[in-house]
């Protein structure tokens, strides 16, 4: 005789793969994604709004000797700004050749560039262990007291990242960022500069979804920076940025766009200082890139 056994309390069935994406999923607070590093918190807006604008002619040639090792030769001719005491900006036409060597390994990356006037620009990134990374960069010149060096130790946890920074001139900094929900990450930083006798503390927050990224950053040096990037489609994204310094009452707002097309990438921005910039990168052929930049 079959007896009716009351069904044991079944766990709810797992969501089927073709369930509507609009269903809110239960958030597992123990399993949050790792946030992006603190210094890259404005990454999306910087990519749109601050491309590497340059003035003059630049020719870069990278020769790969190996899968990991490559040499690069770069020629630059154009005006460079010279710091001057007067309010005007003095530009002097210069030309230089830069030789560089890169070694890229999954565990270690070495990047060195040396210019004709003896300036060396070196970057090292080394994974000391699975979660601990050492990054160092240095700009060394022949002039005394004009060289800078900085080393960062990054520790990546399951849903947080911390970084310790040491620089020459008794510069110390530390930052910490934590994912609070799957979309929101909050972080803070402190720094102390011995030579300039300055110290500061700052906080940042970043909210991102698939379609948009909003970030905000406040620092005790008087800087407030807010940015919003909306990904309108796969190829187009729009960005806006607002920077306010409450010590010097200086405000800058900028709006920009970023079109990523098959062969080219076009970025443009307009500023509240009346400054407009555009940047076009086009892939003409295999290995040949053409860049136009205007400001």
């Amino acid at each position, binding site marked *: 005789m079959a007896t009716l056994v009351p069904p044991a309390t079944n766990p709810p069935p797992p969501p089927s793969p073709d369930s509507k994406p609009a269903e809110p999923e239960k958030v597992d607070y123990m399993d949050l994604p790792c946030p992006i590093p603190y210094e890259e918190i404005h990454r999306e807006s910087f990519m749109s709004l601050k491309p590497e604008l340059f003035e003059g002619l630049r020719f870069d040639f990278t020769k790969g*000797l*190996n899968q990991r090792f490559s040499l690069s030769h770069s020629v630059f001719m154009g005006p460079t700004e010279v710091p001057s005491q007067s309010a005007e900006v003095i530009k002097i036409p210069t030309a230089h050749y830069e030789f560089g060597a890169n070694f890229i390994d999954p565990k270690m990356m070495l990047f060195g560039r040396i210019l004709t006037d003896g300036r060396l620009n070196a970057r090292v990134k080394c994974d000391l262990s699975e979660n601990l990374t050492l990054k160092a960069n240095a700009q*060394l010149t022949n002039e005394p007291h004009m060289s800078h060096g900085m080393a960062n130790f990054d520790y990546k946890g399951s849903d947080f990242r911390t970084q310790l920074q040491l620089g020459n001139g008794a510069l110390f900094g530390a930052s910490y960022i934590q994912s609070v929900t799957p979309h929101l990450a909050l972080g803070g930083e402190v720094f102390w500069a011995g030579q300039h006798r300055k110290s500061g503390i700052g906080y940042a927050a970043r909210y991102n979804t698939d379609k948009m990224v909003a970030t905000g950053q406040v620092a005790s040096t008087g800087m407030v920076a807010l940015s919003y990037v909306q990904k309108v489609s796969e190829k187009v994204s729009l960005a806006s940025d607002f920077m306010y310094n409450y010590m010097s009452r200086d405000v800058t707002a900028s709006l920009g766009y970023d079109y990523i097309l098959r062969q080219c990438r076009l970025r443009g921005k307009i500023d509240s200082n009346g400054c407009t910039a555009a940047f076009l990168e086009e892939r003409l052929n295999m290995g040949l890139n053409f860049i136009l930049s205007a400001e």
Partner: protein
Amino acid sequence: MASRVALKTKSKGAKGGAKPADERSAVKCLKEWSTWTVKKAKVITHYGFIPMVIIIGMSSEPKPSISQLLSPI
């Protein structure tokens, strides 16, 4: 008695003065040594970083040849 007291305080004063002088020279020595090290490290990095990257790159697999290093194409 007054002279003995005076002598005692003098010797104490001398001993007290010698110890901080030792410590100060030790700290000064350490500072000078660390400044010398940083200066030498800067010169070594300035001249040796790119050659070091090239040596590491030339010894990674598959080994490229010297002609590939020097030729411009």
